């Protein structure tokens, strides 16, 4: 079995997913090992909660397992996988926003709460750590309030280091659309973060 797994580790994604379509669990495991970390971090960066990222990462891989047959090899496997992950995240956020709205709450409540907590003057955290955490919370809050497509394009570009062409493949749009999403995302971030920058908070 160890030999079998070693052999699978060297196989291309596209070969492995074909095996997954035939319910090969070793192939599924090999793909999971290859992408688990990346998908978990992508989901976590988009959603912002460890527990929810855990649930959603499971959903993504379950979808991969069940939909393996539908992978036709038109795009790279990783593009297909990321597209599924992005769709799972966006759908989840949409649903959550609807629930929050029905509770008459702001969708960004959690992150603004964090930001406020760190900005509280009575905080006893050591100065350096406090400042670093405050900065991260401010930035996370700003990224969180971007519209969904701008946010996903920004995360894929800035945090995951994908090219415009790859992002276009993942969110199923044109390169020029990705370009304008990122122009707008950066303008929005500038608008939100400039006051903090001027006060030396970030």
């Amino acid at each position, binding site marked *: 079995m160890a030999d079998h797994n070693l052999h699978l580790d060297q196989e291309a994604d596209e070969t492995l997913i074909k095996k997954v379509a035939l319910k090969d*669990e070793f192939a599924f*495991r090999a793909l*999971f090992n290859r992408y*688990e*970390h990346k998908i*978990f*971090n992508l989901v*976590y*960066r988009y959603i912002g909660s*460890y527990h929810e*990222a*855990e649930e959603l*990462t*499971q959903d993504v*891989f*379950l979808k991969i*397992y069940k939909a393996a047959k539908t992978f036709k090899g038109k795009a790279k496997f990783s593009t297909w996988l990321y597209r599924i992950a992005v769709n799972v995240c966006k759908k989840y956020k949409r649903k959550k926003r609807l629930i929050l709205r029905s509770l008459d709450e702001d969708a960004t409540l959690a992150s603004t709460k964090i930001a406020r907590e760190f900005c509280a003057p009575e905080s006893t955290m050591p100065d350096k750590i406090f400042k670093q955490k405050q*900065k*991260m919370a401010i*930035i*996370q809050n700003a*990224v969180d309030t971007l519209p969904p497509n701008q946010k996903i394009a920004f995360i894929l*570009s*800035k*945090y995951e280091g994908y*090219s*415009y062409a790859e992002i276009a493949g993942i969110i199923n749009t044109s390169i020029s659309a990705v*370009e304008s999403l*990122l*122009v707008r995302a*950066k303008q929005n*971030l*500038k608008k939100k*973060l*400039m006051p903090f*920058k001027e006060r030396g908070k*970030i």
Partner: protein
Amino acid sequence: MKCTKAKKHISRYLDGELGGDEKADFLKHLKDCQDCQHEYENLYRILNSIEVPEEISAPPYLFSSIRQKIHEREPQRVIMRRLKPVLVPALFSFVFLVSGLISSFIVQRLEPQYSKEESAALKLTLNLTVFDDAPATSFPDIYNSMISGETK
């Protein structure tokens, strides 16, 4: 290059997506235009302060949870697939049986029920003397109902 175009190119340039002549034109414009330089510096400063968040590791039990979810769905499907050849005909015959029962009940209710005296009176008024001698049970019910139906 005009400022509007140059400003759009700032984002692409910062992402390393601007190349060739476009890049050369952009940089030339930036050198000469203070307004665009200012815009570029602002955006650069903001984006530079956004650090890539530290990567975190996923919980170690993630795969076993996924495996569990896959397998808790699979057996149900296998059972359903095996039972299908039995369940489908069983369901059809059950529906057939129930519809038979219901229709026979309806027919029974539609059929006029006469007491002995009533049927005797009826036969008398209609001059049905032919079947009088024969015992009522020897005739199929349907025949009786035909007669009473016709005569009603």
